[in-house]
């Protein structure tokens, strides 16, 4: 739906990092014309300081569906 504020396992605030992650991914998409590869995604998260895999899965596995729900509110 919308990115959870904190990592479910460790409690680190990851919502603001997700916003930056989406921006960086968009930049890569515009510059290279392809979806960011696994290595590129990993690098973005390293730069954001998201080291633990519990926090990384929060960002990688999120599906932002609020835009689809919003028209029914």
């Amino acid at each position: 739906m919308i990115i959870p504020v904190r990592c479910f396992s460790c409690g680190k605030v990851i919502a603001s990092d997700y916003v930056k992650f989406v921006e960086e991914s968009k930049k890569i998409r515009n510059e290279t014309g392809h979806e960011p590869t696994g290595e590129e995604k990993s690098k973005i998260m390293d730069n954001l300081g998201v080291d633990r895999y519990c926090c990384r899965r929060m960002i990688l596995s999120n599906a932002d569906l609020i835009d689809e729900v919003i028209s029914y509110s």
Partner: protein
Amino acid sequence: MLKIIELKDNFIRFSVDNITPAIANSLRRTLINDIPKLAIENVIFHHGEIRDADGNVYDSSLPLFDEIVASRLGLVPLKTNINMNFRDNCSCGGKGCDLCTVTYSINKLGPGYVYSSDIVPVNNPELTPADPMIPIVELKKGQAMLVTCEAVMGLGKEHAKWQATSGVSYKYHRNFILNKNEIDNWKFFKEKCPKSVIKENDSEIVFTDDIPCNFLSQLFEIDNVKIEEDDTKFIFKFETDSSLKAIDVLSYAIKRIENRFSILMESLSD
């Protein structure tokens, strides 16, 4: 003895000498559970029409349920004055006063995201959200959010929103002892991890992984490397959610442990 190895505003790595694993774990649990911190506890939503300065009418319904929005608001880290009172033992008797409660308000007109920077403290201008970029909810055109919230102090054992630290962990101090005659490529490790060398003489070189260095993990795979672990010296690390500084959290936790042990000793002597 406590020695700080690495210190940033919201990250710390330190070593503690001459303690048992039980003490190390009590320090870890105190860091997770027992640090007071401010978090939004009561949220009052304005339901009905919301008007802006020009008289345009907005709808107060949101795409997420109010309960979910309230939960998300609670999880936003707020800058904290650690000396604030808990509501239960405040001089106001639990009614809520400036010593124990901070009031916030959100007034946002759609369309667009409501971010944590839209949470504005009413009476205490320095206690703003520590992270301004957290999306709370999205508003479509014609929707608006008008909310007042109350933040109170709490402890991590009650709810995760009052947990000031994350990733609290510790490990034993560890020595890798390399015999220079048996292992030829010790120079490679010395070159790659110069900070990790703690002792060197003609016949052997000793590394430690107190300061992380990626190449040291290769030492586990080489035969003849003698690995010594010391169960009286611990390397801790943790980060905070930037509501408090890491160093303040650590000094509070140590005082807190001392205090709790003295309460235990008193009750035993009675």
